């Protein structure tokens, strides 16, 4: 599909084309992705020692533009341009061509989710691919499931926080089922240090942390919410949930059956499936619990459209809801956001 045709589809759906800056203050990228992302940035300092980077991802740039534009009403826009990221061990080009479309500040989330998915389906229908698969999930379902498990709160937070880092997430589950992170000898030694700290002034700072904070966390971990000997049962539930993949029309029944079987007191309603339940022409529609896990800012509905190229499944389009991101990047109030990005090398 030619870019012009793609842009016409987006314009016909009411998305306005916007131009994004080529540079961004590094703090916005680091706020979204953490210090670890620094290794991918082409960054430099201005004369006021403010750190800037070539834009590594246009979606962050787009969100920052929306925040800085002070728009209060529902806004639909799309962008197309180059992002720049250092490549680690492979020798791919550091220039990435990105196109994305987004809806900000709307009050009807379900309608917007449907609109983003519908637009994506239309782009797929106009592409050269004859067959595809639309996978839909919702991070909220996973988070609700974790909240219902009998785990210490800090472990629930940990599992939710690292859902987007699949490799580390799996290591966490391993730790949870084996207790491999607990050394009884060290725990005893640290209990003695904690007792000494209790005699100090609670506002004393040790390497950036107050005695009060250190002891609060120590007590929570060792006395108030100690880990159970083994959490194998909970780990099994998490793993089984992430394996769920079925036609979208069977998803509510199957999920509710799964929750009932595991006594989780959860019920999934229609809101979680913002698409007509019937397969579109040449497009299978599925619920897949284990998709779009690489981006940590997704907060609700997530989806992707995969196509077959050179006998491999490739993601043509992916997106989701990221309501928390705007606040995280400096918006003064909670602002809703949903969008999708295209794999331009396939388009």
């Amino acid at each position, binding site marked *: 599909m030619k870019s012009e045709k793609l842009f016409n589809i987006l314009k016909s759906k009411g998305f306005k084309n916007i131009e994004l800056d080529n540079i961004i203050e590094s703090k916005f990228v680091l706020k979204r992705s953490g210090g670890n992302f620094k290794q991918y940035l082409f960054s430099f300092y201005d004369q006021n020692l403010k750190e800037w980077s070539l834009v590594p991802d246009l979606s962050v740039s787009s969100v920052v533009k929306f925040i800085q534009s002070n728009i209060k009403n529902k806004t639909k826009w799309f962008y197309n341009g180059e992002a720049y990221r250092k490549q680690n061990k492979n020798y791919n080009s550091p220039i990435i061509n990105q196109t994305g479309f987004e809806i900000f500040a709307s009050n009807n989330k379900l309608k917007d989710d449907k609109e983003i998915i519908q637009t994506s389906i239309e782009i797929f229908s106009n592409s050269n691919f004859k067959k595809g698969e639309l996978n839909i999930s919702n991070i909220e379902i996973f988070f609700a499931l974790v909240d219902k498990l009998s785990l210490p709160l800090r472990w629930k937070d940990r599992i939710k926080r690292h859902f987007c880092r699949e490799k580390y997430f799996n290591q966490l589950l391993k730790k949870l089922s084996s207790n491999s992170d607990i050394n009884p000898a060290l725990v005893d030694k640290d209990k003695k240090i904690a007792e000494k700290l209790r005699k100090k002034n609670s506002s004393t700072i*040790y*390497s950036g942390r107050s005695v009060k904070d*250190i002891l609060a966390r120590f007590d929570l971990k060792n006395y108030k919410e100690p880990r159970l000997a083994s959490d194998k049962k909970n780990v099994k539930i998490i793993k089984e949930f992430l394996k769920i993949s079925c036609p979208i029309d069977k998803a509510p029944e199957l999920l509710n059956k799964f929750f009932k079987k595991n006594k989780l007191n959860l019920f999934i309603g229609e809101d979680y499936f913002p698409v007509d339940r019937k397969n579109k022409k040449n497009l299978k529609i599925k619920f897949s619990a284990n998709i779009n896990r690489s981006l940590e800012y997704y907060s609700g509905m997530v989806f992707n459209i995969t196509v077959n190229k050179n006998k491999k499944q490739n993601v043509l389009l992916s997106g989701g809801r990221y309501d928390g991101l705007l606040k995280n990047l400096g918006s003064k109030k909670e602002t809703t956001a949903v969008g999708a990005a295209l794999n331009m090398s396939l388009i």
Partner: protein
Amino acid sequence: MKNEIINIATLSKGRLKIEAEKVFKKSGLKIVSKSERSLIGSIKGFPSVRVMYMNAVEIIEALGKGVCAIGISGKDLWRESEPSIQSKVSLIKEFNWGKSDLVVAVPTSWPDCVNSADLEEISFEFYKRKKRLMRCATKFKNLSQEWFNEKGITQYELISSLGATENSHIIGKSDIIVDLSSTGETLRQNNLKAIDSILKSSACLFSSKKLQNQKEVKKIIKLLSK
């Protein structure tokens, strides 16, 4: 055919210089230099070989750039070097000296921190309560970054340290450190405890991938790696 000079790099200072010279001696390669302070030498019986006394970091760079064919340096420095350098250097042999662990160390006054999962949680605590990233002082930015990435820790900032890293948490330059530790005594003396080991390092024999297949170079590698 013109005989090209083969540069061999070895350590220029201290106890490690003496240990490296022992390796040459044991391999039957006698280094001859004009004086104690001379930074260039030769090897008896190998007229085309030049021995260069260099800083350990520079040795890895010289190997990566193909300036030197063979070198003795630390595994930690090789692993810390940029991918463009590291990929051009082969590790031939790990010696039994110059040993140390690259460790992640936190203050002993943090009894609630015993592993990477604790540190990950604490890094979020910094962000929530102090509105800043947790600071880690280190000379090993690349290896530290790899470890943080592997352990799922994202809320951190690396602070460059050129020396005396162990006291940077006391003077307020950082909150935690990543540094080399041989016996753990310096950590203990500076109120630090290791919570994980990133790398077990020792002195190693390296070669430049670009030059390692030359006949004379192969011969010397064979002797040094016995």
